């Protein structure tokens, strides 16, 4: 049996140094909902596990100020129920509670949720499937395979695995930043810079270094959050990943759109901000027609394959509906 060393450091500094000493085959354990799953599948075979659940300072979250601050260890269920979030950032709350199941949300941490790995079956289920992400150079079984759930945006000839999460999609719409702790202290990056498109090296999902930990997520408490939604269309009404999802927010001035936010989930290799579609709405009233046009624009460059072409039409309507739901909350 593969021995695993397990550490449960009492401080962030200790966690970082344990990670740094451990190297590439070390994994951080937070809620465990992804890591344990992938370990059972032999996709993750860590030699060292650093359990960060003793780092109480990472579990807090504060939504009272000009900036929403979420500790990376805050649980999805706790955050989704936060009253200010529900009222002033419904897209963030909805993205959390429409994910997974209540049991998983009770365990899963926000930081871990950002780092959730793809649900691509060819990635998850090992031999005999070709997968460049799991086994670099073996090929991509999905490109010519059952690719209904794969990416229309941000894919490459090497990988079209979809980023599966919801919360990150909503966060990128609101220009969230993340603070990352490492041996040299903290650094801050936009969340949109965390995930990598696969290119010719699909192995790494993010730019996070092995010795780094996401410590918090920060979101400007912008007024645009109030009229927002996370609209998630899936194959069943709960406990399913998005077929297409859209995080949308709008702010109006004098009856026309002054600010629009739009990000797509379930259809891209990374949380996908649809900036051109956002811009197309500025200065216009939001009507079913303008909303639909924005949706069409958002999917203009979609690279469809055998089993996912329907998502262009579906996606345009998901964006339309999301924008209309959001504007109804203005």
């Amino acid at each position: 049996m593969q021995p695993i060393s397990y550490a449960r450091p009492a401080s962030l500094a200790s966690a970082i140094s344990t990670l740094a000493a451990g190297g590439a085959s070390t994994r951080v354990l937070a809620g465990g909902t992804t890591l344990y799953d992938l370990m059972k599948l032999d996709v993750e075979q860590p030699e060292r596990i650093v359990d960060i659940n003793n780092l109480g300072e990472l579990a807090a979250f504060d939504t009272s100020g000009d900036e929403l601050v979420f500790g990376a260890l805050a649980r999805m269920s706790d955050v989704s129920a936060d009253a200010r979030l529900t009222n002033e950032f419904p897209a963030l709350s909805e993205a959390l509670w429409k994910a997974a199941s209540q049991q998983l949300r009770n365990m899963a941490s926000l930081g871990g949720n950002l780092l959730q790995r793809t649900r691509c079956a060819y990635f998850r289920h090992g031999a005999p499937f070709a997968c460049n992400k799991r086994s670099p150079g073996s090929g991509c079984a999905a490109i010519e395979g059952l690719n209904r759930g794969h990416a229309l945006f941000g894919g490459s000839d090497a990988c079209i695995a979809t980023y599966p999460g919801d919360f990150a999609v909503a966060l990128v719409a609101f220009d969230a930043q993340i603070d990352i702790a490492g041996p040299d202290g903290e650094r801050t990056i936009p969340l949109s810079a965390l995930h990598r498109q696969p290119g010719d090296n699909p192995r790494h999902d993010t730019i996070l270094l092995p010795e780094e930990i996401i410590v918090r997520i920060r979101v400007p408490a912008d007024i645009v959050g109030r009229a927002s939604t996370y609209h998630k269309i899936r194959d069943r009404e709960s406990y399913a990943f998005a077929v297409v999802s859209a995080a949308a927010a709008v702010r109006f001035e004098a009856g026309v759109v002054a600010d629009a936010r739009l990000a797509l989930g379930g259809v891209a290799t990374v949380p996908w901000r649809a900036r051109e579609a956002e811009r197309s709405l500025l200065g216009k009233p939001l009507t079913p027609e303008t909303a639909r046009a924005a949706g069409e624009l958002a999917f203009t460059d979609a690279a469809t394959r055998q089993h996912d072409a329907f998502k262009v039409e579906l996606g345009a309507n998901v964006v339309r509906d999301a924008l209309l739901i959001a504007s109804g909350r203005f």
Partner: protein
Amino acid sequence: MQTRSYTEIPRVDAYDKVRGTATYGTDNNPAGLTHGAFTTATIGKGRIAAMDLSAAKAVDGVRLIVTHEQTGTLKPARFIMQHGFAFQSYSPVLTPQVAYRGQPVALVVADTLEAAIDAASRILITYEEVPFASALNSKGAEAVPQTEAATAWPIEDIVVGDAEAAYSAAPVKVDGTYTMSQQHQNPMELIGTVAAWDGDHLTVYEGTQSAGACKFGLAEQLGVSADNITVISPYIGGGFGQKNTMQSQQVLTAFAARELGRPVKVVVPRRQVFHDSSFRPATRQRVRLSADSTGRFTAAIYDVDAQTSMHDFFQSEHADTAARHYGYGAFRSFARLVRTDTPTPGYMRAPFEHATAFAIESAVDELAYELEMDPVQIRLLNDTETDIVSGLPHSSRHVSKCLSRGAEMFGWERRTPAPQSMLAENGDLIGMGVAIGLYAGAGGPNRATIRATREGVIEISLGVHEMGQGIRTAIANVVARHLNVAPESVTAILGDTRSGVPQMLTAGSWGSASSIPAAEAACEALRNALDALGTNAPEGSSPAEILTLAGRSELSVNAATFAPGQNKEALGEIDTGHVAPTGPMYPDFVTYSYAAHFVEVRIESTTRRIRIPRVVSMFDCGRVLSPRTARSQAIGGVVWGVGGALREAGEVDERYGGVLNADIAEYLVPVNADIGSIDVGFIDEPDPMVNRSGIKGLGEVVLAGVAPAITNAVYHATGIRARHLPVRIEDLI
């Protein structure tokens, strides 16, 4: 004949189950237990050229690795439909052969489950792979006319009149092809075996629908006497046909336990269950249905291609049910079995009837629109008194009553017929659909032993298994009425080969219809034996009161019953672990159970999400024995129908074989949020002929017809005819 309806009693084993005190097969941990895990094949088909066990053997705690090189003394399983005991004739790990991806190729036994799993992943195998065909439509999947398939019980195509001529002459007709993906049962309880030898006696703890088949099948495969095998299966955590015969792991677990001299437990993980157990075969059905201008059917021509394996012919019984949906003027069927490199498909709940109802009831809906007739009216018009295939009467057929009562409960009269004619306030398209379903009213022999004591204990042993359907509750309700005792005083010993009564396969909705008549006969025999004690006890005295008066501590009697047309030979079959069902064709009549389902769908106009806010279903299953568990079973069947129509599909990548979405996160079944209100009702009229208890089956008819009621509602809502299941968003965009 029971003339009164039964009253509702609580589920007798509910407390045991919710508190976790009911002991399921692999809950048993005999002293010295070891744990097994399988290594599974990664190729689609071929043979093992070489195995390197060295890394696996080096894992701490590994005690035994069973490969084809050690199993030479084991006999292969025999397929149940070749008068055997197993879900298929192919036995993994008995030869170097690989018949399908995901089959077991080695069993590792270790002191801990973790060590076994780890070692199983370290066996290195070199394969010789050959081309394979893993799905119904795969290149190389050979279609064999069913009449040419060698089987123990051949099934002929059905010919009633000249259907081709009647069809071509008809003024109104439809011609549709309906396809269904393969589907997989996912009982909460996984397949698994605990095997423990005491000298030359083997005890097996197993969740099985047929303890008898396991006992006699293991004896055959292991080369030991069945007298030396005990199988204990008092509770099953859901069977749904997946556990209705021997599974691959049983003989290997028993073999490993014998080799080791220690008990072995093997629980087959979910992913492996998808790959090495039976499943509902993929089907392609073509229905040509015609009517005269008044809507009376003149002909139905029914062609079905059903998936089977390379090693067995899993027979298609689709046409048998198709022929009984209505009183067609003429009927002709043609069935082909399509051989694929998969495990042998099997009897997943309403194994044929779910698919058949989808095809027939969709075609009827299409024809109703051609005729501009109401979908309920066209069904009522084409109901039939007699069975068109045999000319025999139905023992009972209350499908029209199911339709009428169901329509009233549902509020069918509020439906406007044109597609897209009903809109909700929020803009959702509203659709209302109806369909009927049928399931054969089977029966069989059963033995019973009943024992009454002066202390008030009533203990009854029957040849039937508790699978969650609530048979213990039904038995308690029936015995309590017949002996004038409280249901709580009745203990049923089921699924246990030590009970002395043969444990017949519980499947095909014949569990109650075969065991309850035996229970009634045993109660009657006990009554007679108590009367013979000559105590002159007052009318209505309980067995305990009579025994007290007679000065006896206890009394035990036996009984045996058969279905109509059966005799002692049928008992001989179940006494040796085989099955002996009969029906729906009895010597003088034909028996089916019936369902009518009414479904309302709401479809979001933009995203085309299908939601089902309400279902009304009405059933004719003869006498209802246990209203609470019957209702529960019916609701569960409707939920399954929602899954069957909108969610479930085993996804096969034909380049690899096997099942891609082999877990219950990705193989979608309904969740609570998918289910709205489900109202179920029962005609509850006893069948006057099929058995003394007046009961027909319920467990499967509840599912038959749900899917087409949904797709017919989808058509009504959208004008789009869904001819493939499951229906997903993309089908409506």
